[in-house]
């Protein structure tokens, strides 16, 4: 389908943010409703785009581009493949949900409510832009611009240590981004030499020859940026701080979408642009991923703050995604992409439920809870289902993706598959122990003391926030085919770029499939 669908989709939230900025002071309710309505319009537009995407069609669809800076050969080039498309859908679904979830949280303290919502919408533009840009420089601009609204969301609306967390987030990302910048420039230099004309266009760069050494160095630059963003062990230490301090709404987008830019970058840039380097470094990434799976899961067990705990579980999940990408099998790749979406839904939902608890207790510390299940059974139910999704129980969405990743990794490298599979035991530990410490047991007497806040169960607004995600968790766990049908061709194309095929069944005579 032709037409400026993607530019409109990208710009729309930003326009909303600007409109919000011009609202009069104190019109908080209007700002909230306007932002929510705006994000619903974006959702509808995204649904239209998804409905018109042809899974069997070209790799990139809705392709449009505009002249930008002809001197550098960079254009405002738009286009989505199946991988980017499912991420667009995730962004479109999560944004209205987090806006609704932030209803009261954003108003705490002296901070401006409308600014919060404007920042969220601006962030949405950046997130969409990262996934729809098909020009490397254009991508880089969104990649860096994304930091700004998130920086202010954490730094202005976060927890008590928000300044530290925001700066840490910013510096890590910025330093990673500088590595990428160096690589982007180097890529341009190579393109000048190889193609006779400098360019940042993905489709031209993807087929380009380059020397092994140059390819590996440039690969590393991209890798560091994406590994910080993802984040991959050992670049992960900013995430628990950022995730722990960010307001819930921003935390959901941070962990659910922003971090996926890293793993998306692996798939979109590292693999197709540098096939040789990707194959060369794959063992390294797989080792880092596996360390991350076990290491972060053990750390999650040791946390005493729920938001930090969820952040660490995310690091473990990103390990799964990374090994899925670098296993170079269709199952690993499709599983990883599906994992990106599913993790956004499941962990997003987990963060939101944690937010419900914090809204009642005013604390994220696990020790401040205990026996809460009896007081708020519906919240307990939501917490339980999202927890089960986090440990990838079958019939939840995460199971399909984790199963595919592990199977894909195992069929490429059995040893890596075995070690990574141990992660499912540790995942069960951190989830169940968190549930036990917060929900089970006798009710913590401090919760029932005179003067402590009333424990109301799920409000109507909260039900609207969490129900869509719970439906998606179960729905995609039972019937993941619609997503996989979109993802598969894009992953196959990526694997073709990187020059890898699935291993054949090793012990079937003649591979009779």
């Amino acid at each position, binding site marked *: 389908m032709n037409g400026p669908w993607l530019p409109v989709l990208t710009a729309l939230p930003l326009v909303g943010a600007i409109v919000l900025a011009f609202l009069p002071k104190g019109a908080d309710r209007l700002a909230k409703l306007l932002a929510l309505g705006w994000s619903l319009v974006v959702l509808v537009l995204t649904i239209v785009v998804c409905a018109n995407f042809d899974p069997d069609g070209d790799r990139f669809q809705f392709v449009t581009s505009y002249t930008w800076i002809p001197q550098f050969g960079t254009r405002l080039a738009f286009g989505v493949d199946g991988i980017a498309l499912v991420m667009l859908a995730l962004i479109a679904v999560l944004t209205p949900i987090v806006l609704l979830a932030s209803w009261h949280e954003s108003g705490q303290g002296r901070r401006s409510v409308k600014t919060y919502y404007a920042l969220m919408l601006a962030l949405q533009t950046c997130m969409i832009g990262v996934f729809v840009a098909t020009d490397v420089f254009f991508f880089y601009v969104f990649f*860096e611009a994304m930091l700004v609204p998130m920086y202010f969301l954490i730094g202005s609306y976060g927890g008590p240590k928000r300044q530290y967390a925001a700066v840490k987030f910013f510096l890590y990302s910025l330093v990673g981004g500088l590595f990428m910048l160096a690589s982007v420039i180097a890529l341009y230099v190579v393109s000048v030499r190889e193609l006779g004309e400098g360019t940042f266009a993905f489709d031209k760069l993807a087929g380009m020859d380059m020397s092994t050494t140059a390819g590996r160095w440039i690969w590393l630059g991209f890798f560091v940026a994406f590994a910080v963003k993802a984040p991959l062990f050992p670049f992960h230490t900013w995430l628990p701080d950022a995730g722990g301090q960010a307001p819930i709404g921003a935390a959901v987008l941070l962990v659910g979408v922003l971090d996926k830019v890293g793993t998306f970058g692996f798939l979109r840039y590292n693999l197709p642009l540098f096939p040789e380097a990707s194959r060369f470094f794959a063992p390294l990434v797989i080792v880092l991923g596996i360390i991350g799976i076990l290491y972060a899961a053990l750390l999650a*067990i040791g946390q005493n703050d729920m938001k930090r705990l969820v952040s660490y579980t995310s690091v473990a999940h990103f390990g799964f995604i990374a090994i899925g990408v670098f296993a170079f099998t269709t199952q690993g790749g499709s599983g990883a992409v599906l994992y990106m979406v599913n993790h956004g839904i499941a962990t997003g939902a987990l963060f939101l439920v944690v937010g419900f608890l914090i809204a009642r207790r005013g604390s994220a510390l696990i020790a401040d809870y205990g026996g809460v299940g009896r007081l708020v059974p519906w919240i307990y139910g939501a917490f339980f289902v999202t927890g089960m999704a986090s440990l990838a129980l079958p019939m939840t969405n995460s199971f399909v993706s984790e199963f595919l990743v592990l199977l894909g990794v*195992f069929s490429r490298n059995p040893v890596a598959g075995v070690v990574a599979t141990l992660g499912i035991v540790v995942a069960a530990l951190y989830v169940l122990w968190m549930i036990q410490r917060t929900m089970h047991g006798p009710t913590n007497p401090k919760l029932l003391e005179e003067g402590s806040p009333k424990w109301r169960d799920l409000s109507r607004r909260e039900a609207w926030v969490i129900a869509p995600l719970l439906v998606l968790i179960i729905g995609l766990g039972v019937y993941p*085919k619609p997503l996989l049908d979109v993802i598969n061709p894009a992953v196959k194309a990526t694997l073709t770029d990187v020059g890898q095929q699935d291993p054949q069944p090793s*012990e079937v005579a003649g591979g009779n499939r």
Partner: protein
Amino acid sequence: MEYAEPTGSLSLLWLLIALPLAGALVLFLLGRRANAWGHLLGCATVGVAFVLGVIQFFELRGLGEEGRQISQHLFTFIDVGGLKVDAGLLYDPLSALFVLLITGVGFLIHVYSIGYMSHDEGRRRFFAMLNLFVAAMLLLVLGNSFVALYVGWEGVGLASYLLIAFWYTRPEAATAAKKAFIMNRVGDVGLALGIFLLFATLGDTSFEGVFSNVDQLSSTTVTIVALLLLLGACGKSGQFPLQAWLPDAMAGPTPVSALIHAATMVTAGVYLIARSAPIYDLTETGRTVVCVIGALTLLIGCVIGCAKDDIKKVLAYSTVSQIGYMFLAVGLGGEAYALGIIHLLAHGFFKAGLFLGAGSVMHGMNDQVDIRRFGGLAKYMPITTVTFGLGWLAIIGIPPLSGFFSKDPIIEHAFDRPGWSGWLFGGAALLGAGLTAFYMTRLFVLTFLGKPRWTTEEEGGKPHPHESPLSMTVPMMVLAVGSVAGGFLLTQGDRTSHWLEPVLVRGAEAPEAAHKLEPIVITALVIVFSLVGAGLAYLLFRGGTAKAEQPANQLVVAARRNLYADAFNEAVFMRPGQWLTRALVYVDSRGVDGLVNGLSAAVGGGSGRLRRLQTGFVRSYALTMLGGAVVVLASLLVVRLG
């Protein structure tokens, strides 16, 4: 081997799972609004499923012997590259029997729970979870691929977790539930890896695809697959070395212990091995390991069962031990696969009956579980005494009750195993029979016979034992009838073995091995061992027992402490794990974070500058960004011009 398309009532296979699943969803989602009638809906869904199961069983029987493997495709679950996973069901003689067991015993236990849980405010939630369990268990036995089985497998694990933790305000219930889930997950790792290995080598995970190509696998691969599946089976079935969770699971309500932790879920491991018979047939080593696990576990269960004083824990270890017999049987392979399944079915009846009886006793005794504080209950609970008594006679294998017909042939086949291993396994099974008779008789005598040793007012209230309501006793009576007649009906004319042949026995019959001992000799030995065990227990305990734990020799102390399995797990896994976690938390905050902070500080030009950045104003970061962009553009210009 080709599976047939479903016809007639068999096209409604999916409804077997959908009914209890719908029941669970309705009961969960309606919440308090369903409190008044929730238990009735819960019973109804399982009851209808049972009726449907019976109709489908006869429909299957009406088909020719060749056509009794029905596969129903529902929808495509996963289709990525070479991996195609159907959401599909397989209905064959093996799964048909399991459907009857699960829905039949399941229905009885649902009915029993109406009375048992009548005073519990969470009764609706309880029935929702029981329905969920039945749905997952049916998926486990009806799935037509290893993946579908795995989905059901973890599904029953979830239901088991929820039901053990049903009274989650009690810390010991919450902890027991978590322990069960974790230890099951350890087993699940094995099952998952087995599936991955099958896919990597055969490119398929469906039963049809795997079993028709399994002979192409190298013998090493087959053995590894068999051992990985066995690890999964051990986790689910509470077999050594993953047995420690099952006794703790008794923290759940007693109907749960009866249904999940005795009759159905814990026998899933036996199902898995029998279902994978084409794999185990190809690996002598794999089968031997199954036998060793089975023989070892049956003895462990017996020994600990003799030392426990908690009525449910004795029954739990008895379950561990009886499943050991089933493992031994399926490990022997060939004809003995069917014997394992027969014992599983018979055990489903008498063990469920025993647990319901225990529940009835607890119901009348203020939830007391210590058999040292029972005694003389026969007078007050005649129905419970008779039904429990029949279960007791069935499990110790007194002819002509159920256990005699199902256990005796397993012991015979164990002796028939060629070489010295036959003596070993047969001997273990025979010794186990004697020990079973001992601890079960001790349990029966101390509970129902002799003089009362009940708690007094000062010790926390005098119980007023009474018979349970009809909703509880009727299911017990039905199960007691099953305990009496089940074994005979299942084995008469080898009908069950013959029925299961298309699934379990493949290819040429192995030549009949020479008997080491004549079957009649073994039967006599089993009866003698059982009578001696039972007689000894009767003589020792007819006069009652001390009301509190007495000092004892080292073996008894070890048995009381579960042969130190928990202590081992704690010392080897839990404490080092906690230590590791604490160490890593420290390392991560100091080491890794510090290192990366240091590095980024170095990159940023010294730690002083970093500190300044961290405490500076937001504007300066925006400036930094702008500066970065300028640098980019400038360098691009340089490149362009240069």
